[in-house]
């Protein structure tokens, strides 16, 4: 049995990929079909429900940050559209430059 993604808690509004999921692929999670809006690597998050800007992101049944931009089910949820409610994260881009705070 291959698992594509899992929803860790019944309260979660994101799912976590168990393998890389290609753009356009439709995966079934808790009986809901999600079509990946873009290719997402293993361990990343896809929106399980529609998420408004400002909405809390719930994973493990716990708040893990807030949306900075809206997302549709199947959209990749990461630092381009969500942020920490505690402290900013820092990044390093592909050139090795520190990209500073996430959006």
């Amino acid at each position, binding site marked *: 049995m291959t698992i594509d993604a899992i929803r860790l808690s019944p309260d979660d509004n994101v799912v976590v990929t168990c393998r890389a999921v290609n753009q356009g692929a439709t995966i079934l999670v808790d009986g809901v079909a999600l079509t990946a809006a873009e290719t997402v690597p293993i361990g990343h998050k896809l929106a399980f429900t529609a998420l408004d800007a400002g909405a809390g*992101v719930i994973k493990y049944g716990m708040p893990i940050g807030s949306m900075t931009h809206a997302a549709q089910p199947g959209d990749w949820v990461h630092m381009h559209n969500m942020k920490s409610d505690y402290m900013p*994260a820092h990044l390093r881009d592909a050139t090795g430059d520190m990209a500073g705070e996430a959006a």
Partner: protein
Amino acid sequence: MIEGYLRADGRKGIRDAVLVVYLVECAHHVARRVVDAANDPGVQLVGFPGCYPNAYALAMMKALTTHPNVGGVVLLSLGCEGFNREELARTIAASGRPVETVVIQQAGGTRAAISAAQDAVETVRARADAAVQRVPMALSELVVGTICGGSDGTSGITANPAVGRAFDTLVDAGATCIFEETGEMIGCEGHMAIRAATPAVAQAIEASVHQAEAYYRAMGYGSFAPGNAEGGLSSQEEKSAGAYAKSGTRVIDGVIRPAEAPPGPGLYLLDVVPPGPPRFGFPNIVDNAEIAELIACGAHLTLFTTGRGSVVGSAIAPVIKVCANPETYARMGDDMDIDAGRILMGVATLADVGAEIVACVTRVAAGEPSRSEALGHQEFVLTYKDMAGEPADAAVPRGPACLVGSG
């Protein structure tokens, strides 16, 4: 069965190292030459780089050099540094361990000090071998630490909760388990406090995490590295929620500080963040600084979960690698003891991997080298820290007051 090394102070170890300890960077080269020439995985290099004295570093060195996995010690001093080598040597001797001190300025320079320290290693090894007794050791006598490094989106689903299952089994068996890094518990303090054995422990947990948040905020960075984001983690609290799963589900019996031994069996949170405003920089600059603190609290071995793929081990106490990510395991399996990514592939359950971890702990405690040991990893980091400053909230109980069964 685990055959432990019984020490004069009554504690039992699972390894029998002779430590060569440089007490300032100026003595590092001599110490390294001595350890390299010994070419024996049981002769290990640790040290402290700074010339200025530091109470935390002295307390750490006292705890590390009298760790039950250590049979004897050779101290290497340049001669003029601030480290209190006499007090450290007295503490080691009082624990019943052989100790020799070589002072490079007194020995007559590099060549003479290397030669003297090589003789000292032989003397200490012989005396340690003559003193040690092998005795049966139960799982309940083990102290096990856990840490995560190179976390990604799989860590919190596979390796961390699997270690949590193993911790539940070990705590139920009467062992002592330590989880750490209050900076990686930011956002989890409320849930942790509910698991506290007493209201004082709950208060200490919440205070320690709030202090971690204030400290990291002042430093400008949380405990969140670029690789965490590449691996799918989007926020500090998301990383925290995954890291917290390592602690399992049992009652949290107390909050301890670096170099402080838990007062009895059970589950403990190691608070690694100094009180007050930042003084010497990040609480721990890298994973091995935290592993050294777990060892200084008495950990016989450490369970290290990794998603991105860390390769480190440690001096003094074995590190067992639990790999969270099946893609990482496929690339770096030679460095990994446990393949927890099988949970994602649907071919193993959390319970299966938790049981594998407990079995691996038992084998490594019984003498089987962990992967990092077999590969020769003996990393060690100890830097400046001030754990004695005034806490931001002086009303919060510290030390014995926040431990169960004390006072």
